[in-house]
């Protein structure tokens, strides 16, 4: 793959314990990526130093009054933190568990995006209302099915322009105006891509409502980095061989079913 691919992690002071493990898993399992960029809010700068977490490249984003929404804003402006052709998103509480390269995450120049039909979720897909409110159109899928997630850099600017046209304000302002749990950045990106740039991605439909953990063991940072989690993570990091080959053999890629 001739294009450049960077991994971008958005973190903050409460997650530096997780971040440290995540970075170690990237060092162990990820190859073929150009750079790893860690983005933290300005008020986490000194805490990053005191926590002795020393990523090679750190950038600082604005301070947000609600960082749960704020960290989503940062990701939606990912193209302003790196000039890579493609950007990989992974959260601090996701730990790579097997070898991973850019070729595992795309088909040619089309990133894989896993989708699950909203009808698979009991009741309602968790982010369906928020995403439909943003797009102002119905959606049929949930687009946040696994980590890492890969997007071409041009899509972020397109999404921001879409927000300006539709909501008459900047995307950051729209997101920060939402109520708690009122926005999902990866569902917004995915639904936008599916609606307007479908051919630029390789869609893989899955019936599973649980997160796909093919590449990353996904934890929930709010639970805290307790002993059980640490033991599991250290076991993952202590594996002598990666689980399965990498490059081009994205395990059990299903035939992409036509998505409505």
């Amino acid at each position, binding site marked *: 793959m001739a294009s450049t691919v960077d991994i971008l992690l958005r973190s903050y*002071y*409460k*997650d*530096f*314990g997780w971040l440290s493990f995540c970075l170690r898993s990237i060092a162990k399992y990820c190859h073929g990526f150009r750079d790893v960029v860690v983005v933290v809010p300005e*008020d986490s700068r*000194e*805490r990053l130093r*005191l*926590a*002795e977490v020393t990523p090679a490249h750190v950038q600082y984003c604005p301070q947000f009054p609600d960082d*749960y929404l704020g960290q989503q804003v940062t990701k939606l402006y990912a193209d302003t933190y790196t000039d890579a052709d493609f950007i990989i998103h992974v959260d601090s509480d996701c730990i790579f568990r097997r070898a991973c390269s850019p070729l595992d995450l795309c088909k040619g120049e089309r990133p894989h995006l896993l989708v699950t039909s909203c009808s698979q979720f009991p009741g309602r897909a968790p982010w369906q209302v928020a995403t439909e409110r943003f797009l102002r159109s119905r959606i049929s899928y949930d687009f946040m099915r696994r980590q890492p997630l890969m997007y071409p850099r041009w899509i972020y600017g397109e999404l921001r322009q879409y927000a300006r046209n539709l909501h008459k304000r900047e995307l950051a302002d729209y997101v920060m105006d939402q109520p*708690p*749990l009122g926005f999902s950045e990866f569902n917004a990106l995915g639904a936008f891509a599916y609606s307007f740039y479908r051919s630029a991605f390789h869609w893989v439909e899955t019936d599973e409502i649980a997160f796909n953990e093919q590449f990353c063991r996904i934890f929930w940072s*709010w*639970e*805290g980095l307790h002993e059980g989690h640490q033991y599991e993570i250290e076991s993952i990091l202590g594996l002598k061989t990666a689980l399965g080959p990498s490059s081009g053999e994205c395990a059990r890629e299903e035939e992409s079913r036509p998505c409505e």
Partner: protein
Amino acid sequence: MASERIELFRFETLDGPDEKLAPAIQAFFRRLGVAHVYDEAVLPTLQDGSSLVTVAVRDRPWPPWGIGAQAVSALAFFHPVSDGNAGLGNVFVADEEQTSVGLIAAVYKEALDQLARRRVDKVHFVVREEAALSMHVLGAAGFQRTSHPFLTEQSRYWLHETDIGAHITALGLQDSSPLELLADQFKGGAFDRIALFLITLNLSFLPYWQDRLRSPEIIPNTGIARVAECLPPGGPPAPQGEETS
């Protein structure tokens, strides 16, 4: 672990009412058994802009919104604050953090830094005459007794004042950030000095807030910062044994 402490707390400083933090601050004082302090001292002085409050806040892991989502673990209340001068106070601390010198020092230092940003250069305490412990510890922290009295029905108090920079240096905190203190990173023996200072402040000040003693060693300056404006035309009353000019 120091890194865990850094992840647990954040600091906020208020110089006016804050609707979002008010419930957490009220609950904090209630749990300490001094709920009246918020209604009688903190809120009115925030409303008239004459105080500064610095808090160490813990956020509930999930959800971080809604009732009880924030909890205050330590609070510094400085009053009065005006025209380059500020009355300092103790740091109120939740029971479970009473011996967390790093946390308490961090809140105190953050509050002092905030005063300095607001161009306060003189700070003071109001100390009872012949209060041996408080006078000794405050003296070591850079304070000197002035000629400004403060009289209650029970006792005579004196303003003890110093430059804010001199106070910070005397405590050995000039090269320490609040976050470093939170991480228990004290430089050059400052831990002993600051621990003694803060514990003494609490011992001396709390009885006033708890209404336990008629003459606590230290009381808040519930007058105004510019004490000289209160002086009678002939100057301050002389200390015992001295002739009035």
